[in-house]
């Protein structure tokens, strides 16, 4: 079967810096695939390249069988792939409702949009409570929920999540990961970038480990969980502080 997302030999350069070197990865329909690795490993850049926010220097990206390398972000979102960026990036001065409304900007049917909105407010009750509040006044965990809900408003087939646990309290992180599992149960395909490898491997079907811009290991989540190499080389160290300014 054609994978939903297929990245082949992707290179991304920022000026003199090569952030991603020959990365290949596949995500099949219905899977949760995790991309693990330390800061600066090239995880975020890989996601940004997938949605066209940074240009691929070389390589090919295919979504549901169609080459989308070099496509505009707007077109890629229209096709059904979207990204919840690192740091949540809700529109702070817009209300929760307005953020959700913008998430559905690619859709035309007002009735359908209203239905999706109600669905989101049921899925995330806190957002219903805060519907008319500025998004910037929400807590980190609530903003993460809003960012995910906003992305879901575009009815994606594939959701890319960049560090959804970053800066959140452990209990909130658990909630977010539960939510990701529920989204999978609803039929969504998910590509998840995480520094918290243990938590990510708990919910993922498969995972790739990146270091210095390359994929250094991949396999089923179960196999990676028990791999000594992983535990020692990439996952044992305490998570580094979030410094990724270029998102490399």
């Amino acid at each position, binding site marked *: 079967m054609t994978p939903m997302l297929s990245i082949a030999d992707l290179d991304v350069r920022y000026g003199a810096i090569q952030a991603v070197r020959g990365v290949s990865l596949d995500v099949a329909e219905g899977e949760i695939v995790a991309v693990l690795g330390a800061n600066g490993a090239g995880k975020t850049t890989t996601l940004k390249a997938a*949605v066209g*926010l940074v240009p691929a220097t070389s390589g090919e990206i295919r979504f549901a069988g169609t080459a989308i390398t070099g496509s*505009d*972000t*707007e077109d890629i*979102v*229209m096709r059904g792939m*979207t*990204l919840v*960026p690192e740091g949540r*990036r809700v*529109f*702070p*001065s*817009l209300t929760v409702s*307005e953020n959700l*409304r*913008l*998430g559905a*900007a*690619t859709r035309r049917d007002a009735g359908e949009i209203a239905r999706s909105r109600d669905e989101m407010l049921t899925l995330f009750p806190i957002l219903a409570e805060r519907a008319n509040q500025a998004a910037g006044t929400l807590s980190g965990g609530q903003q993460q929920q809003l960012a995910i809900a*906003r*992305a879901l408003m*575009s009815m994606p087939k594939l959701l890319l999540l960049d560090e959804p646990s970053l800066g959140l309290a452990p209990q909130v992180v658990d909630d977010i990961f539960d939510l990701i599992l529920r989204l999978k149960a609803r039929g969504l395909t998910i590509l998840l970038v995480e520094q918290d490898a243990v938590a990510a491997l708990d919910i993922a079907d498969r995972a790739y480990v990146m270091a210095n811009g390359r994929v250094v290991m991949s396999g089923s989540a179960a196999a990676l969980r028990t791999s000594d190499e992983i535990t020692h080389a990439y996952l044992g160290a305490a998570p580094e502080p979030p410094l990724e300014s270029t998102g490399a």
Partner: protein
Amino acid sequence: MGYFLEQTGNALSLGGIYALLAIGLAVVYSILGLINFAHGTLMTLTGYILVFTAMAGLPFAIGAPVAVILVMASAVLLERIAFRPVRGASGATMLLTSFAVAVLLQLAFQLFISTRPQIVPLPAVLTTTLDLGGFAIGVNRIISVIVAIVVLVALNQFLKRTILGLAMRAAAEDFDVTRLMGIRANRVIATAFAISGLLAAVASVLWIAQRSSVDPMMGLIPVLKAFIATTLGGLGSLQGAVLGGILLGVIEIYLAAYLPDGALPYQGAISLGIVILVLIVRPQGLIGARKEAVK
């Protein structure tokens, strides 16, 4: 008391025009980080279109909307031709580009039209004065205040109620994520320029309704004032632009009305001095917007 009310009318009328111009600058700045000094040229262009529509025999009531529409289109065209190639470049590059556009168009006006002021024929009603029991106020000033309010309210509704308006506000906060919503960057930017063109044109019509002439340099000073107003209100903040514009108009008119004769030549210096004082206390402006430009 009559004199005070009269001057207040003048102040609100001038402040309203500054506010329209200041928002026009702020809309573009908040999204692109571009301070568009060619904004004044759009004002001037509006004036010449009014001259030509009058020469073609069209009444002012038709010439004015025609001018507004043509100037909106010109603003969008300007973005396509001049600003799109430098999009994402440094603020200084974009600023210089806007100066270049302003100078080029100004020279074109001088060469192909005239360096001397051209008369804009106004309908008689605009030049009459209403006596409101104790004080008199020009019809043009009343209309100016009303039009400014209507345009500002309409703009506010657009930004709050329409998806494109929401996208404009979103893009001012986070351009990349706005694109992730599937909203075309070019569409948002073209809309920003269309709005700024609309505001420049409306402000120009109101400005000309009080002067009835246009020359190649006409837009320069009001847009400079509008730039001061946006800085005063908080660069990039639309509410700040309105507040700064009205405040600047009020300061200028009251100073002109109440300064002793000996101090009148220093009116400009004093009003700028007040602005500087405000900025020393609040460097981010009265309504402090975020510091960084988006793109």
